[in-house]
Protein backbone atom coordinates (compact mmCIF):
# COMPACT_ATOMS: atom_id res chain seq x y z
CA UNK A 1 0.00 0.00 0.00
CA UNK A 2 1.28 3.44 -0.83
CA UNK A 3 0.65 6.53 1.18
CA UNK A 4 -1.79 7.81 -1.45
CA UNK A 5 -4.13 4.86 -0.93
CA UNK A 6 -4.73 5.86 2.69
CA UNK A 7 -7.51 8.35 2.57
CA UNK A 8 -8.35 9.46 6.09
CA UNK A 9 -6.58 10.85 9.13
CA UNK A 10 -7.69 10.11 12.70
CA UNK A 11 -7.92 13.10 15.04
CA UNK A 12 -7.45 12.30 18.76
CA UNK A 13 -9.35 15.41 19.82
CA UNK A 14 -12.68 14.95 18.05
CA UNK A 15 -12.09 11.22 17.51
CA UNK A 16 -13.25 11.60 13.93
CA UNK A 17 -11.44 10.95 10.67
CA UNK A 18 -10.98 13.59 8.04
CA UNK A 19 -9.84 13.47 4.46
CA UNK A 20 -6.17 12.90 3.73
CA UNK A 21 -4.85 15.24 1.07
CA UNK A 22 -2.46 13.60 -1.39
CA UNK A 23 1.02 14.93 -0.83
CA UNK A 24 0.86 15.00 2.96
CA UNK A 25 3.74 13.19 4.62
CA UNK A 26 4.77 11.95 8.03
CA UNK A 27 5.70 14.91 10.24
CA UNK A 28 3.60 17.43 8.31
CA UNK A 29 1.45 19.78 10.35
CA UNK A 30 -2.17 19.74 9.23
CA UNK A 31 -5.47 21.04 10.57
CA UNK A 32 -8.33 18.68 11.45
CA UNK A 33 -11.21 19.88 9.32
CA UNK A 34 -13.71 18.62 11.90
CA UNK A 35 -12.51 20.38 15.08
CA UNK A 36 -9.70 22.70 14.00
CA UNK A 37 -6.95 20.92 15.95
CA UNK A 38 -3.39 21.24 14.64
CA UNK A 39 -1.94 17.76 14.13
CA UNK A 40 1.44 16.29 13.31
CA UNK A 41 0.96 13.41 10.92
CA UNK A 42 2.06 9.92 11.93
CA UNK A 43 1.58 6.66 10.09
CA UNK A 44 0.53 3.78 12.36
CA UNK A 45 0.67 0.71 10.13
CA UNK A 46 -1.61 1.73 7.30
CA UNK A 47 -3.50 4.33 9.33
CA UNK A 48 -2.80 8.03 9.39
CA UNK A 49 -3.03 9.38 12.91
CA UNK A 50 -2.60 12.94 14.06
CA UNK A 51 -0.50 13.70 17.12
CA UNK A 52 -1.00 16.81 19.25
CA UNK A 53 2.34 18.64 19.12
CA UNK A 54 1.39 21.14 21.80
CA UNK A 55 -0.90 18.95 23.86
CA UNK A 56 -2.33 20.70 26.89
CA UNK A 57 -0.72 24.04 26.13
CA UNK A 58 -2.70 27.25 26.03
CA UNK A 59 -1.42 27.79 22.50
CA UNK A 60 -3.01 24.52 21.39
CA UNK A 61 -6.39 25.52 22.77
CA UNK A 62 -6.33 29.04 21.36
CA UNK A 63 -5.26 27.87 17.91
CA UNK A 64 -7.91 25.13 17.91
CA UNK A 65 -10.84 27.33 18.84
CA UNK A 66 -9.75 30.13 16.50
CA UNK A 67 -9.34 27.64 13.68
CA UNK A 68 -12.68 25.97 14.39
CA UNK A 69 -14.45 29.36 14.40
CA UNK A 70 -12.74 30.20 11.11
CA UNK A 71 -13.71 26.85 9.55
CA UNK A 72 -17.36 27.23 10.55
CA UNK A 73 -17.72 31.00 10.23
CA UNK A 74 -18.54 31.36 13.92
CA UNK A 75 -17.69 34.34 16.09
CA UNK A 76 -16.80 34.93 19.75
CA UNK A 77 -18.17 37.45 22.21
CA UNK A 78 -16.80 39.16 25.32
CA UNK A 79 -16.99 35.91 27.32
CA UNK A 80 -14.18 34.38 25.24
CA UNK A 81 -11.30 35.05 27.64
CA UNK A 82 -13.27 33.95 30.71
CA UNK A 83 -14.27 30.74 28.94
CA UNK A 84 -10.66 30.12 27.90
CA UNK A 85 -9.68 30.56 31.53
CA UNK A 86 -12.26 27.90 32.45
CA UNK A 87 -10.98 25.56 29.74
CA UNK A 88 -7.43 25.99 31.03
CA UNK A 89 -8.63 25.18 34.55
CA UNK A 90 -10.37 22.07 33.24
CA UNK A 91 -7.12 20.95 31.67
CA UNK A 92 -5.21 21.57 34.86
CA UNK A 93 -7.73 19.79 37.05
CA UNK A 94 -9.19 17.12 34.78
CA UNK A 95 -6.53 16.50 32.16
CA UNK A 96 -7.85 18.10 28.98
CA UNK A 97 -9.79 21.02 27.55
CA UNK A 98 -13.28 19.86 28.50
CA UNK A 99 -16.22 22.25 28.30
CA UNK A 100 -15.95 24.54 31.35
CA UNK A 101 -19.72 24.54 31.83
CA UNK A 102 -20.26 20.80 31.95
CA UNK A 103 -19.86 18.33 34.76
CA UNK A 104 -18.65 15.44 32.68
CA UNK A 105 -15.04 15.04 31.63
CA UNK A 106 -15.41 12.75 28.66
CA UNK A 107 -13.87 12.95 25.18
CA UNK A 108 -17.08 14.10 23.50
CA UNK A 109 -17.03 17.21 25.66
CA UNK A 110 -13.55 18.29 24.60
CA UNK A 111 -13.83 21.73 23.06
CA UNK A 112 -15.32 22.12 20.48
CA UNK A 113 -17.65 19.54 21.99
CA UNK A 114 -19.57 16.91 20.04
CA UNK A 115 -22.95 18.69 20.29
CA UNK A 116 -21.28 21.81 18.89
CA UNK A 117 -19.79 19.80 16.03
CA UNK A 118 -23.22 18.25 15.60
CA UNK A 119 -24.91 21.56 14.87
CA UNK A 120 -25.83 23.18 18.22
CA UNK A 121 -24.60 26.56 17.04
CA UNK A 122 -26.71 26.36 13.88
CA UNK A 123 -29.77 25.34 15.91
CA UNK A 124 -29.40 27.53 18.98
CA UNK A 125 -27.28 30.40 17.74
CA UNK A 126 -24.52 29.43 20.17
CA UNK A 127 -22.78 26.44 21.67
CA UNK A 128 -23.62 25.13 25.15
CA UNK A 129 -21.17 27.36 27.03
CA UNK A 130 -21.45 30.33 24.68
CA UNK A 131 -17.91 30.25 23.31
CA UNK A 132 -18.95 29.89 19.65
CA UNK A 133 -21.72 32.02 18.18
CA UNK A 134 -23.43 31.98 14.85
CA UNK A 135 -22.47 35.10 12.98
CA UNK A 136 -25.40 37.41 12.19
Amino acid at each position, binding site marked *: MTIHEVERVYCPVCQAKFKYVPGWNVGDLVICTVCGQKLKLELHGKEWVGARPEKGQEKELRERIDEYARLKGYVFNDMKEE*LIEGLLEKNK*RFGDFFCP*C*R*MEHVPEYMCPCKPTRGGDVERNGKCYCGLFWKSK
Partner: protein
Amino acid sequence: MCTNGKMTVVGESRSMTAKPKVYALSTCPYCKRTKRFLDQHKVAYDHIDVDTLDDAKQDEVLEEVEKLTGRRSFPVVVIGHEIIVGHDEDKLKKALKL
Protein backbone atom coordinates in the same frame (compact mmCIF):
# COMPACT_ATOMS: atom_id res chain seq x y z
CA MET B 1 -30.50 42.34 52.60
CA CYS B 2 -33.93 43.86 52.68
CA THR B 3 -32.84 47.46 52.85
CA ASN B 4 -35.26 49.24 50.57
CA GLY B 5 -38.02 49.43 53.13
CA LYS B 6 -40.47 47.38 51.10
CA MET B 7 -42.72 45.03 52.97
CA THR B 8 -41.64 41.42 53.04
CA VAL B 9 -44.31 38.91 52.17
CA VAL B 10 -45.06 36.98 55.35
CA GLY B 11 -44.88 33.57 53.72
CA GLU B 12 -41.36 34.28 52.51
CA SER B 13 -40.02 35.82 55.67
CA ARG B 14 -38.66 32.65 57.22
CA SER B 15 -36.90 31.42 54.12
CA MET B 16 -35.56 34.90 53.30
CA THR B 17 -33.55 34.77 56.47
CA ALA B 18 -31.64 31.76 55.16
CA LYS B 19 -28.46 32.50 53.28
CA PRO B 20 -28.72 32.14 49.49
CA LYS B 21 -27.11 28.98 48.24
CA VAL B 22 -25.09 28.79 45.03
CA TYR B 23 -24.46 25.52 43.21
CA ALA B 24 -21.58 26.07 40.82
CA LEU B 25 -18.84 24.54 38.73
CA SER B 26 -15.37 25.74 39.65
CA THR B 27 -14.44 26.28 35.99
CA CYS B 28 -17.65 27.95 34.80
CA PRO B 29 -17.30 31.69 34.10
CA TYR B 30 -21.03 32.31 34.54
CA CYS B 31 -20.86 30.74 38.01
CA LYS B 32 -17.92 33.01 38.80
CA ARG B 33 -19.87 36.04 37.62
CA THR B 34 -22.76 35.09 39.89
CA LYS B 35 -20.45 34.73 42.89
CA ARG B 36 -18.71 38.00 42.01
CA PHE B 37 -22.09 39.73 41.75
CA LEU B 38 -23.08 38.50 45.22
CA ASP B 39 -19.70 39.50 46.63
CA GLN B 40 -19.94 42.96 45.11
CA HIS B 41 -23.36 43.41 46.68
CA LYS B 42 -22.07 42.10 49.99
CA VAL B 43 -24.55 39.26 50.04
CA ALA B 44 -23.49 36.43 52.33
CA TYR B 45 -24.09 33.06 50.69
CA ASP B 46 -23.17 29.41 50.86
CA HIS B 47 -21.68 27.83 47.79
CA ILE B 48 -20.79 24.40 46.54
CA ASP B 49 -18.44 23.79 43.61
CA VAL B 50 -20.03 20.54 42.52
CA ASP B 51 -17.18 19.43 40.26
CA THR B 52 -14.65 19.48 43.10
CA LEU B 53 -16.61 17.17 45.40
CA ASP B 54 -15.73 13.53 45.84
CA ASP B 55 -17.89 11.10 43.86
CA ALA B 56 -20.36 10.17 46.59
CA LYS B 57 -20.98 13.75 47.67
CA GLN B 58 -21.14 14.85 44.04
CA ASP B 59 -23.91 12.34 43.25
CA GLU B 60 -25.85 13.53 46.26
CA VAL B 61 -25.55 17.21 45.32
CA LEU B 62 -26.32 16.57 41.65
CA GLU B 63 -29.51 14.82 42.69
CA GLU B 64 -30.35 17.86 44.76
CA VAL B 65 -29.73 20.15 41.77
CA GLU B 66 -31.79 17.96 39.44
CA LYS B 67 -34.62 17.91 41.94
CA LEU B 68 -34.54 21.70 42.15
CA THR B 69 -34.19 22.49 38.46
CA GLY B 70 -34.86 19.32 36.49
CA ARG B 71 -31.43 19.53 34.86
CA ARG B 72 -27.72 19.69 35.40
CA SER B 73 -27.07 23.26 34.51
CA PHE B 74 -25.04 25.80 36.48
CA PRO B 75 -25.03 28.14 38.29
CA VAL B 76 -28.12 27.51 40.39
CA VAL B 77 -28.94 30.07 43.05
CA VAL B 78 -31.53 29.31 45.70
CA ILE B 79 -32.88 32.43 47.41
CA GLY B 80 -35.76 31.59 49.68
CA HIS B 81 -38.33 29.97 47.39
CA GLU B 82 -36.71 31.40 44.26
CA ILE B 83 -34.53 29.17 42.12
CA ILE B 84 -32.45 30.96 39.51
CA VAL B 85 -30.70 28.87 36.88
CA GLY B 86 -27.90 30.57 34.96
CA HIS B 87 -26.24 33.90 35.63
CA ASP B 88 -29.04 36.45 35.62
CA GLU B 89 -28.35 39.70 37.41
CA ASP B 90 -31.89 41.03 36.97
CA LYS B 91 -33.37 37.96 38.62
CA LEU B 92 -30.77 38.07 41.39
CA LYS B 93 -31.51 41.73 42.07
CA LYS B 94 -35.24 41.06 42.17
CA ALA B 95 -34.95 38.02 44.42
CA LEU B 96 -32.54 39.76 46.77
CA LYS B 97 -34.45 43.03 46.62
CA LEU B 98 -31.29 44.93 45.70
